[in-house]
């Protein structure tokens, strides 16, 4: 027992050391491509840390969204024509180190403040017990999904609105030149990986009701399928070719969420206050459409907002 505890201590230290070293290397490396690679690896190690801290939902989201999609989005900014892009701190070294000392002092101050109130957290703002008490009335049995889609559904609605605003901003910028080349190897991979990804997205969405998973992770898997199709040479990346269908898909998540909320308000239930008996089905409906919207939004974000034919 004692030995096992010690082993956990060693693992914790190793994980934290690797995480911090990767973050420093990603921020400080002078080669831009290398910095992006290190950031992706950083995201994957962070996913391990989430798993270690008993946060499997976030581990899934981090691996798919933070490391996967974030990495793909970053790589899309690399230009085809240049080989290596170096960025060093442009400031005088003394200023760089001075700023480094300053941020570390700030960090120490935050740490000191936070750690001094940490022992009181259990009594003051911990809401875990309240969630557990209400879980049976939420329509789902997984506490994180219950918080996201029921107790704090308002936040999640606004989050989908943020996602919608971001993609509208991206689309408003017009065409951007695509920087990636299509690879034959991807088209063979896509043939059987894309159906599998769609199946897994459906599974993760369904599993979210009772275990880690849900709309965000499922949407990220769909976006992964879309990006794979785009890299395999499909210029529409599996998105509908009709413009109105794309627009409909992008607003579906936010729109239906809002309509359900308003409908329940009109029904005399209060905004996004599901009747207990039907909560499960409302949540499932909203999550399904949110998955489609998230998948389409993130795929389009990778493609620069507007599907376009490959310039020959």
């Amino acid at each position, binding site marked *: 027992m004692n030995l096992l505890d010690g082993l956990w201590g060693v693992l914790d230290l190793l994980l934290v050391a690797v995480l911090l070293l990767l973050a420093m290397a990603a921020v400080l490396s002078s080669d831009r491509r290398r910095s992006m690679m290190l950031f992706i690896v950083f995201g994957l190690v962070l996913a391990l840390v989430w798993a270690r801290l008993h946060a499997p939902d976030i581990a899934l989201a981090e691996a798919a969204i933070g490391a996967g999609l974030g990495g793909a989005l970053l790589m899309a900014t690399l230009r085809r024509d240049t080989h290596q892009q170096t960025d060093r701190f442009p400031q005088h070294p003394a200023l760089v180190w001075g700023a480094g000392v300053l941020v570390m002092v700030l960090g120490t101050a935050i740490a000191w403040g936070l750690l001094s109130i940490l022992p009181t957290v259990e009594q003051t703002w911990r809401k875990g017990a309240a969630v557990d008490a209400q879980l049976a009335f939420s329509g789902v049995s997984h506490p994180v999904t219950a918080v996201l889609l029921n107790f704090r559904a308002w936040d999640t609605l606004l989050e989908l609105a943020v996602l919608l605003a971001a993609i509208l901003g991206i689309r408003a910028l017009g065409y951007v030149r695509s920087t990636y080349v299509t*690879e034959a190897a*991807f088209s063979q991979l896509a043939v059987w990986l894309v159906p*599998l990804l769609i199946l897994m997205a459906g599974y993760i969405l369904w599993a979210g009701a009772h275990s880690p998973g849900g709309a965000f992770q499922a949407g990220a898997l769909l976006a992964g399928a879309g990006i794979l199709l785009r890299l395999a040479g499909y210029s529409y990346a599996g998105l509908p070719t009709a413009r109105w269908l794309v627009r409909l898909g992008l607003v579906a998540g936010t729109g239906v969420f809002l309509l359900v909320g308003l409908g329940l308000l009109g029904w005399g239930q209060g905004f996004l206050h599901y009747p207990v008996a039907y909560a499960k089905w409302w949540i499932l409906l909203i999550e399904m459409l949110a998955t489609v919207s998230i998948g389409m939004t993130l795929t389009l974000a990778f493609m620069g907002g507007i599907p376009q034919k490959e310039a020959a």
Partner: protein
Amino acid sequence: MILDALSVLLLLLGLFFFVSGLLGLWRFPNTFARLHALTKADNLGLGLVMTGLLFQVPDVLWAIKFVLVWLLALVASAVNAHLIAVFLHRQQERHDESA
């Protein structure tokens, strides 16, 4: 008990391949050799780890998930290695042409 022993044995064997793959990644002279070490050792290592874990599953659904994870990792590493190798090969050809 025998199953547990088998698991431990396979996990250790898998670990050995991971470590040798890492050594190869670290010490081999060029990218092609490093890719070779990484993919060979990692695929076999992961396969052994997954086989070791298969003796610990509570039901068939878990076993299917484990096998799926392994297959996906195999495909991903094969495609990745291929893409990196093709990219390097093209770069070298371009370099030869310009020289």
